[in-house]
């Protein structure tokens, strides 16, 4: 059954995202305890979980309904345990073998028609995002938005730092999945990042051992052909450029499933940046984000299209490229604190072996 997300009234909001921050209605301060869904409180602010900032977004399987009822589960742990109990009630979780695991092979791309906006329930209006934040986080967001607007903000990726999770979903580049019974490797070309999802039943690291990492720590289980993931231990950061911050207490629940849009009779038109894609294959991921900054959990659906590399011509094109960020980046920070770019000859030739062995230098 197709689920259609309507575009609402914020088409084009992406460009206008920072241009104004209108005062919020008083009831924007309502807490989740009131259990009045934000999309009902602010029907015109783009707070629906399924609003597209650019166009309608159709899914085959993934639901834009917030899991756990009108205001969602109270925590990622509750959400995960509910999914686990549900699987157990049907004899799960599924214990896959190498041959029974679903086939997620190939090269995939994030459907950039949702891309950056997918991370906020397809909602990139500044007012809509602000309405979904706790007051303190909202004030921080308004400050950060002004910094972006005035060119005083730096994207951490400009420092060759990795996209943190869940921003990982929203960047471009080839995606690759490698599934084994006890672990799933979920890769993104950008910064050569692979998430490791342990499906061997182990819990997250205890508080003694848990740190905060760019991609966090992920555990999960299989429910038939659905991979359920719970991630915690994520660094604090930003959801995307021009988007709110996330705390290091963010936890995320995902449900991954491969679907066949053609068999389901759903027309998919992914924004592939010009790449050929296979219409019969698509991965849809329900993503639910829990963070103390959020008034209620944020929930959305991310979709991957599959690159069509069956032709010799496309086999030339479909090659994930090493993300040699330090080598490829030419940015530096001036004495005035401005991010700028090196001109030719200004950056040391750090990739030249002769630079590594030079008697005129003292390397310690």
């Amino acid at each position, binding site marked *: 059954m197709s689920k259609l997300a309507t575009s609402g009234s914020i088409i084009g909001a992406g460009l206008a995202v920072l241009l104004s921050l209108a005062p919020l209605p008083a009831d924007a301060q309502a807490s989740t305890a009131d259990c009045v869904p934000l999309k009902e409180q602010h029907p015109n602010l783009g707070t629906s979980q399924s609003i597209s900032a650019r166009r309608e977004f159709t899914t085959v399987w993934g639901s834009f309904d917030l899991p756990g009822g009108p205001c969602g589960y109270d925590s990622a742990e509750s959400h995960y345990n509910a999914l686990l109990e549900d699987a157990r009630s049907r004899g799960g979780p599924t214990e896959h073998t190498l041959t029974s695991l679903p086939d997620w092979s190939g090269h995939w791309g994030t459907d950039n028609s949702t891309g950056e906006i997918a991370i906020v329930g397809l909602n990139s209006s500044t007012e809509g995002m602000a309405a979904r934040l706790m007051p303190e986080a909202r004030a921080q967001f308004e400050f950060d938005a002004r910094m972006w607007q005035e060119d005083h903000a730096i994207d951490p990726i400009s420092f060759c730092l990795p996209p943190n999770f869940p921003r990982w979903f929203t960047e471009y*580049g080839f995606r690759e999945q490698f599934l084994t019974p006890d672990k799933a490797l979920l890769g993104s070309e*950008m910064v050569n990042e692979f998430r490791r999802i342990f499906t061997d039943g182990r819990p997250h690291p205890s508080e003694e051992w848990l740190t905060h990492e760019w991609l966090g720590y992920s555990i999960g289980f299989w429910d038939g052909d659905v991979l359920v993931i719970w991630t915690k231990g994520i660094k604090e950061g930003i959801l995307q450029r021009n988007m709110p911050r996330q705390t290091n207490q963010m936890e995320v629940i995902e449900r991954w499933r491969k679907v066949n849009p053609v068999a389901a009779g759903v027309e998919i038109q992914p924004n592939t940046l*010009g790449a050929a894609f296979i219409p019969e294959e698509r991965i849809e991921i329900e993503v639910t984000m829990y963070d103390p900054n959020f008034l209620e959990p944020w929930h959305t659906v991310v979709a991957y299209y599959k690159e069509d590399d069956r032709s010799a011509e496309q086999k030339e094109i479909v090659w994930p*490229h090493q*993300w040699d*960020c330090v080598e*490829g980046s030419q940015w530096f920070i001036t004495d005035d604190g401005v991010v*700028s*770019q090196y001109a030719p000859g200004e950056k040391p030739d750090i990739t030249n072996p002769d630079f590594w062995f030079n008697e005129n230098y003292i390397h310690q």
Partner: protein
Amino acid sequence: MRTIIVALAVVALALVLAPVRAHHSGAMFEDVRTVDLAGTVVRFDYLNPHSWLYVNVANEDGTVTEWGFELDSPTVLRRRGVSPNHWQAGDRVAVRTRPLKDGRPAGFLVGAVSSQGKTFGQTNGLTLGE
């Protein structure tokens, strides 16, 4: 070919010309103003996160300045038909760039034509000269 042509474009055009999915702020480059230059390719670095085309440009006083021009990542360039050999050392090129605001010889590549017949981006009015 040694003439620097300064062109003012409209703001809307500048938005169109912004990097497709640049991974960093473009604030160090001119937002609107473009400059047309011509010269000889030194090398083309096909690198993530951004590729760079280096070109020797002759100045009015007879000296030569090496310029660097930033492009998108290989991930994006592959899909636009730009291979690692799109430009090779020795190719003559005319380029249009949004230069660094501070005047150093680098900028974002808006368009280019080459003596090998390779084009990129916005090429209207770009000629290799004599």
